[in-house]
């Protein structure tokens, strides 16, 4: 036990400031305020791999490492789409995942946002469309923002998340 505590003390806090926090203060404050107003520091994300190569997943997982410390910003991943504000979708949507993705989307309460992740999620990427791939996420569910990159870096993902919450969310009819 003692060696665990010593190690934690020895390493200290690695978490870094939010992207752009020293160059773009007003923008960040604005994002923070909006986040706070809408979610009260409780933005919840449901991730769905709709056919990714697993590269994008690695970078999404990296968001929770001590350097990016997503949870420290009040943003967390949840297991159920019913608890989520944002649907974070990776991959070209495979034909075999199309139905599951639609159901996850429908299970989410309003207001909600959908973020397509990676070149694949944004435009189909190297896999494109074909007998087994529907291509971009937007061909299956409405998308509010996309984060390009193959895979996108954790910083781009953070920026994408902060960016989408500045847009009007999808409201139910």
């Amino acid at each position, binding site marked *: 036990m003692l060696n665990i505590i010593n190690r934690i003390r020895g390493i200290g806090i690695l978490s870094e400031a939010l992207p752009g926090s020293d160059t773009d203060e007003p923008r960040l404050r604005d994002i923070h305020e909006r986040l706070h107003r809408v979610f009260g520091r409780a933005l919840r994300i449901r991730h769905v*791999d709709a056919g990714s190569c697993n590269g994008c997943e690695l970078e999404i997982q990296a968001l929770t490492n001590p350097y990016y410390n997503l949870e420290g910003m009040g943003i967390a991943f949840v297991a159920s789409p019913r608890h989520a504000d944002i649907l974070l979708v990776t991959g070209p949507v*495979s034909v*075999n995942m199309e139905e599951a993705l639609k159901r996850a989307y429908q299970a989410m309460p309003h207001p909600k946002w959908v973020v397509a992740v990676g070149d694949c999620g944004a435009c189909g990427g190297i896999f494109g469309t074909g*007998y*087994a791939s529907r291509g971009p996420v937007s061909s299956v569910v409405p998308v509010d923002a996309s984060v390009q990159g193959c895979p996108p870096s954790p910083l781009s993902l953070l920026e994408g998340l902060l960016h989408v919450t500045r847009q009007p969310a999808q409201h139910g009819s």
Partner: protein
Amino acid sequence: MSLEPIALEGSRLAANVPAQHRVVDADQWTAAARQLHDAGARLLTLWGADDRDRDGVFRVFAAYLLPGRALVLELALAAGDPTYPSLEPWFPAASRLQRATRDLLGLGAGEGDTRPWLRHGGWPEDRFPLRRDVSAETHVPGVPGPYPFVRVNGDGVHEIPVGPIHAGTIEPGHFRFSVVGEKVLRLEERLGYTHKGVAKRFEALPLLEGHRLAARVCGDSAVAFSWAYCAALEAATGATVAPRATCLRALALERERIANHLGDLGALGNDAGLAFGLSQFSAIKERMLRLNQNVFGQRYLMDYIVPGGVRSDVGPRLVRPLLDEATDVERDVVALKAIYDEHAGLQDRFKGTGQLAPLTAKAMGALGLAGRASGIDLDLRVAMPWAPYGDLRPHGVLSMDGDVAARVQVRFDEVMESLRLNRLLLEQLPHGATSVSIPALGSRTTGLGLIEGWRGPVMVALEAEVPSVIRRCHVHDPSWQNWPLIEHAVTGNIVPDFPLINKSFNLAYSGHDG
């Protein structure tokens, strides 16, 4: 039917490891399977090809691993009745490979499990997408039907369906548990959810661009797959890669191994209730990825390995930071290993959980890391070393225990060994070119690339055609062999231990689904 023994030899096959190729007839196909099984060989993969446009037949291929070499058998199938004898009686791993080959090409293995595997009803049953007369672009919807899982009957038995979407940030797949109380009586996997049609996609790509798609078959093994593709291409075209480039490729491969093992070691601690492990290991991994960005221009080395060599050199200025990093990582991992080893709560969850006995592992044809944790002493870097592993002489890692603890131990040991190899590579980096040009293709040609990735052997079989196009490209991830192992390892355990057991294997979904 009496089967004459056949010679398990063939003509030389262009590859980065010793490999042979032999054309057989249906009887020889079966006789060879029996002999290879008795000789202790492993079935690595099985795939098909539509050659009706060339000589009026389909073909099915089986690649086996023998001591020190690979052997590929080829069997031609009549276009009117494309069936072949099943390899399942000798090699259980053949079952899902044969089901996939039927889904994609309509080649039938006669007997055994005939349920579809990759086709979930997303395209029609009688439309075989990998046939040459089926267009790559058109999506023809099929009719999804129920999938007949094997039912377990008895007092108090009930089913728990899980997936395809799982609770965490992981890939999709379906697990059907039959349980009594908390105890798992049977697990049946259903995969194929991330099937994107990679094999068909390859056929639309120029030969010199295939490595980019190969790297994205399985993003966590990008180096292994892109190297396997380039090795196949270079063997097929007779290109010789300069020693400096092979060393830089090995450096990238070992970094990929270390990074994945570190990620898994953290996640395994977390799944067993020690969140401290996750933050510690993920921080070390993050520092490695950042150095990757500085040295190779990418956090994950998706496009570092290119036909003929590597994309960029590692200059003398960058060698020192890489060596310093190896020292830091080693120091941290040694300290964390001591903490893991002494943590009673962690060891209690690890030891005896998800046991895969060496005999079962052998019978199932287990490969790679999971195999080595269950006494299967096979690491291609040791068994058939390709350049530069012949000079590096890596030490194989082995455990006989077969539980989660053994898979943790193998990861720790392999991290240490990869750090040692990294240091050797950096200290003795040969001078010279980092890439050579690929000779133009004179005629139709084939090549094989076989690389020990962090999960196990990754294979690419490439058939190239003038003018510089991919005619057929088959990629194989060891997860094909290892997924069925989890069905065995989880039996008799409690449902709440499944995530831990599953993580201890950490198999590929996309790499498997293709």
